[in-house]
């Protein structure tokens, strides 16, 4: 193997958070400065490396790293446009979430453990994004499960443990299904690298049932993390985790891993033509549509802020699946763009929920009355995020919905439009009351559990600056992603690029 910097960059990106993570594990609790320093160093380093790779891919360089692992399936890390979309999202949100987590976890115990696993989690996510074939993907997919679990149960309460158990029951089950699917496919073709248009075409005639079963298994496995019904049960429970974890979990790390996997399977393993030919798109589409509606309905029932957000994730992530299942170029663009859009918006929402909980002790939606007066910036961010979720222009969510709808019409699935409309209405039904409470209801005489973070005055000092800055950062990004969707650097434009390659446009 010739080792040049293009070969080493993918593993370097993975290691840039893995190694600091391992170092952080070994730190004592009181080495706060060193820990923060390591964290931020790793974040910046990763961002730099990702930037380098973005430039490289833009210039048409190829980044590929391989190690022997299984007969017929090497360990391949490969930086292509699709993976970069996800890697960039992870790196950027990791930056925000690290700052947020440092602020959030001040003075709480077991920080070394937390940040250690936190870094591992990101490494797994990035590895998953860079995975060049199914076997590698599977590897990082499972690692992600493992790295996330300690974060989820970080609080160690009974509730957290219950959530952890449910999480594991779902994700490990899903992992096993995915393993079966991958192994099944591997037994037929080996695990060649992902390629636009898929690589199963030659098998289509001889092994049709096998291919269908493998697809079903893989989608079921990935669907657990992507929270497709009826496999979504873990996600609402997982909201007991600390806010930065929920944010990361819902925005980029876990649910996106599932969605990203579905994208990979449909586009780069089977290829849209084969998915169509095998008749696999329609069931997936139906499940995604059902999930969108069901998640929204469930969200309506929730009285706990984070739980409502969690069910909203169930619904929103399925937009990605929906877009993929439509197997049309425009819907594909929507799916890929929504991958980023939903991440930005949902991370904002969870940050905000965390800020409310940390600063004022707000957990239930009834307690949100008048919070806009006390914490206007956070509430404004929350509002923007929520409007984006509903799909109100010009937020990022609107762009996704727009392209989804157009994509559905393009392939003749007009009924998807109805789903989008109903989902939009339901989203509004569960988000607008929150916004109403925040801005238009009177604040209570005393907040449930107010803590003195920041100056306590509305505005820049409404909470600790490390909690506020990431919120504003991601809000601005979410807003810009929608507002400047037509620009060269927007997620939409990048998605368009990927899809053009996929569909040979």
């Amino acid at each position, binding site marked *: 193997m010739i080792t040049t910097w293009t070969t080493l960059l993918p593993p370097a990106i993975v290691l840039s958070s893995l190694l600091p993570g391992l170092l952080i594990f070994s730190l004592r609790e009181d080495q706060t400065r060193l820990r923060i320093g390591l964290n931020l160093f790793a974040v910046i380093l990763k961002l730099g490396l990702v930037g380098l790779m973005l430039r490289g891919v833009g210039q048409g360089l190829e980044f590929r790293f391989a190690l022997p692992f299984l*007969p017929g399936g090497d360990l391949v890390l490969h930086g292509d446009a699709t993976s970069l979309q996800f890697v960039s999202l992870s790196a950027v949100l990791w930056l925000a979430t690290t700052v947020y987590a440092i602020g959030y976890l001040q003075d709480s115990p077991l920080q070394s453990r937390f940040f250690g696993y936190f870094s591992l989690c990101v490494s797994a996510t990035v590895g998953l994004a860079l995975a060049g074939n199914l076997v590698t993907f599977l590897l990082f997919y499972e690692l992600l499960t493992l790295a996330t679990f*300690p974060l989820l*149960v970080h609080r*160690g309460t*009974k509730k957290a443990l219950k959530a952890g158990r449910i999480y594991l029951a779902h994700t*490990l089950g899903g992992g*096993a299904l995915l393993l*079966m699917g991958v192994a099944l496919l591997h037994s037929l073709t080996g695990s060649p690298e992902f390629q636009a248009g898929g690589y199963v075409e030659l098998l289509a005639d001889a092994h049709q049932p096998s291919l269908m079963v493998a697809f079903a298994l893989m989608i079921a496995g990935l669907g657990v993390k992507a929270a497709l019904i009826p496999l979504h049960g873990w996600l609402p429970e997982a909201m007991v985790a600390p806010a930065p974890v929920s944010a990361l979990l819902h925005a980029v790390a876990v649910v996106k891993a599932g969605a990203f996997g579905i994208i990979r399977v449909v586009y780069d393993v089977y290829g849209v033509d084969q998915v169509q030919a095998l008749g696999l798109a329609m069931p997936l589409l139906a499940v995604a549509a059902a999930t969108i509606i069901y998640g929204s309905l469930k969200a309506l029932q929730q009285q706990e802020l984070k739980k409502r957000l969690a069910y909203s994730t169930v619904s929103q992530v399925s937009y990605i699946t929906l877009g993929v299942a439509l197997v049309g170029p425009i819907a594909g663009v929507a799916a890929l763009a929504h991958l980023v859009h939903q991440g930005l918006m949902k991370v904002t929402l969870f940050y905000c929920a965390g800020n409310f909980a940390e600063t004022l002790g707000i957990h239930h939606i009834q307690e949100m009355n008048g919070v806009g007066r006390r914490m206007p910036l956070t509430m404004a961010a929350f509002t923007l995020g929520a409007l984006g979720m509903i799909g109100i222009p010009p937020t990022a969510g609107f762009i996704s919905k727009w392209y989804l709808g157009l994509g559905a019409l393009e392939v003749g699935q007009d009924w998807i439009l109805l789903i989008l409309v109903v989902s939009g209405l339901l989203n509004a039904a569960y988000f607008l009351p929150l916004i109403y409470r925040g801005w238009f209801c009177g604040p209570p005489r005393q907040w449930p559990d107010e803590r003195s973070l920041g100056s306590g005055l509305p505005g820049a000092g409404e909470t600790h600056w490390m909690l506020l800055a990431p919120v504003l950062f991601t809000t601005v990004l979410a807003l810009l992603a929608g507002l400047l969707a037509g620009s060269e650097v927007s997620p939409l434009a990048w998605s368009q690029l990927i899809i053009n390659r996929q569909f040979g446009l």
Partner: protein
Amino acid sequence: MSAALLSLTIPLATAMLLLLFRTRAGTVVIVANTASLVAAMLALDAVMTGAREQLSLGNWDAPLGIRFELGPLTAVLLVFTALIHLLVTIYAQASRHSKTRDTDFWPLSCLLHASLAALWLSRDLFNWYITLELLGLTAVAMIIISGPRSHLPALRYLLLSLAASLCYLLGVAFLYGRYGVLDIRMLAEVVVDDPGTRLAMLLLTLGLMLKAALWPLHQWLPAAHAAAPTAVSALLSALVVKGPLFILWMVWSTLAEPGFARQAGVLFAFAGIAALVSGGWAALRTPWLKVLVAYSTVAQLGYALLALGLLLYWQDPEMSIALWLFVLAHGLAKVSMFLGAGEMQATLGSRRVSALKGASQTMPLAMFAFAVAGGSLIGLPPSGGFIAKWVLLQPLLVEPSHWPWALGVLLGTLASAGYVFRVVTIAFNRADPSSPGHDPDTAAQWLAMLPALIVWAMALLSEPLILWFQEVGL
């Protein structure tokens, strides 16, 4: 071959010396194990570069004398045995909580090492009987090091071990009575499929299954393995049960006629799935930490049994590779798991699973070792367990008609995930962490983790190993 014999004699001689001088110096054993490991590696190297080697003991050829054979598998198993012994003895020497420091653990472990080496090398049915007895007696002797509490399970183990040996011996007698040879290769040449042979095979199988604690004859194992001192539990689960398994595999893969093998294979495979499920379930429900780990051995042996069954059922040599990869991965992982569990149990002062509350804070390393080893047992990539499962799954998935078996593997995976994460979850309970009785022993915890790390690193070596096995056969 000389390296292999060296790997056998070094521990034997060490045991003699230790007994003679009544020293209980772990260092000596560690040095001996290292030497044995080096010798085993030389043997492996020789096999890799050359071919399989034969040795007729006393220069008496097979029907008269006993034959040793050094093939790829034997060489790998020699290395494996020496490696596990080395890891465990280092732990036993370093850990403050190991109850084995000033005991006869050291000579006994050397004898165990030698017995296993003798077993791997031998290809003679009766000689195997003696090595089996050696294994059984060493195991029992080592179990009772931990004190009177272990006597009852040890006695049960001993009795069943004896009964199993006699079962095996009766089978050997029948075979000898029928064919007049004891060497497995010569037997394979003359064996025919008739009722007498089948009966003999049945007796052999049952004896070996009992010794290897294969479902449904596993009942002695949990109590016995759990009662032993930590280091011993590790050796027992990692190595001792694998000896009879080796013989079982050898007997069936060389002696059984395809028709008979197909019949038996189905039964083996079903037993394997039953072991996976029932062992996993029992591990999930038991309140005792080490019993949990022991039941996990029962469950994991189910994989081996399944692989054996399918090997016989389809006559697919690929399955042998899967079987032995399972054994290797399970051995290493189980060592780590037992050592981690033992450390935690000793430090936290309770044998209950529920005592592990907060162990992820109080004993992060040991818990991590447990979890990492558990990951391999579950078969999470890129661990050795994953590789083994992968190799097992590949032939299972090619044909749609084979898929139901894959369901068994799936069940096993889920069951093992269940019990591993049952422990891990409790360890993350921060509600009321059990305060450790005395301060944890960091070095020992690192040593507990070492085998688990090795099993995960195994993934990187596995591809050449698998390809080599596929090329030359086992």
